[in-house]
């Protein structure tokens, strides 16, 4: 019995080392895309700062990775999560959205904040600075509604 346990542990250790060689993909650009929200909308500095702190890691092409992303399988699952986030809403590509899509995305930003769905708990539990204060929530919602109204005119 002891022998088996030892074998299993050895296998697990080797597997853990082995998966470190799986190539990692990174969602990292030095510069903001031309279609980034900051270049396609008139975004005040404080609003842009909130977007970058609380949203950009999963919803843009400019992720700031934590150190443990260098470890597999963390990297694998994180990248998967980011791909999904970017499919829903990508702040780096917002300028390329159709007007119709843009309007429904802006609407969703408001309802996600209202329903306290975003930024999600599993993210803010580590990124404490991403948590939105009540004041920040109002600032974001006001700015988004204002732009939504402009688009609907």
């Amino acid at each position: 019995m002891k022998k088996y346990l030892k074998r299993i542990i050895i296998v697990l250790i080797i597997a853990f080392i082995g998966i470190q060689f799986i190539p990692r993909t990174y969602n990292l650009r030095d510069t903001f895309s031309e279609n980034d929200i900051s270049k396609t909308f008139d975004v005040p500095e404080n609003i842009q700062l909130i977007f970058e702190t609380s949203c950009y890691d999963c919803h843009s092409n400019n992720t700031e990775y934590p150190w443990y992303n260098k470890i597999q399988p963390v990297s694998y699952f994180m990248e998967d999560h980011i791909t999904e986030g970017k499919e829903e809403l990508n702040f780096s590509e917002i300028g390329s959205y159709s007007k119709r899509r843009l309007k429904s995305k802006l609407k969703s930003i408001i309802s996600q904040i209202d329903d306290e769905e975003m930024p999600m708990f599993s993210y803010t539990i580590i990124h404490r600075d991403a948590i939105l204060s009540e004041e920040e929530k109002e600032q974001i919602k006001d700015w988004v509604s204002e732009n939504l109204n402009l688009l609907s005119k």
Partner: protein
Amino acid sequence: MKKSIYVLVVIALTFTACKNEQKTKDHNESESTEMHGNSDGHHDNDKEHVEENRSIETSSDKNSATSAMVDGYLEIKNGLVSDDKSAAAKGGKNLLNAFASFDMGSLTKEQHSEYMEIIENATEQAEHIVKSPIDHQREHFEVLSNDMNDLIALLGTEKTLYQDFCPMANNGKGAIWLSETKEIKNPFYGSKMMKCGKMQKQIN
């Protein structure tokens, strides 16, 4: 020792295989968005005329091709009216199938670009309706109703529909929905406010 190396190889291969699959999927998706981007690139300005809550002109070309889509949409609507999350989700699935099996060959070039834009957005709403709790289903249904309204204005329908308006929905800004019955049954609030709303227009 030999055994553990085999295990390791299998694990590594599984991970790499998953990764590749993901990549192909991403690739396909980005390709289709690119295609879409190109096809409507020239029509950006034309789209400006598609306004929210646009009323539907009674269309003379009654299009049976949209029937499956309208059916899927109404199934979602009726699910929400009866506060039934899974019925709405099922309607969402049927709507997605109807979008997928629609023959785009019948569209003119101008129709095609507007159609693609509407479907892109409507598909996202339907996907969320399939997988979300009922409050979220209702939020996405608001957006979807606009898309369906525009889609019918674009392509026509052989069905008799009623465009209803609820002044309370959409954070008090109001929102429309489409119904097959004259009687008001509110899908945005269900049993909480069944009779809220008024009929704005009859289609066909």
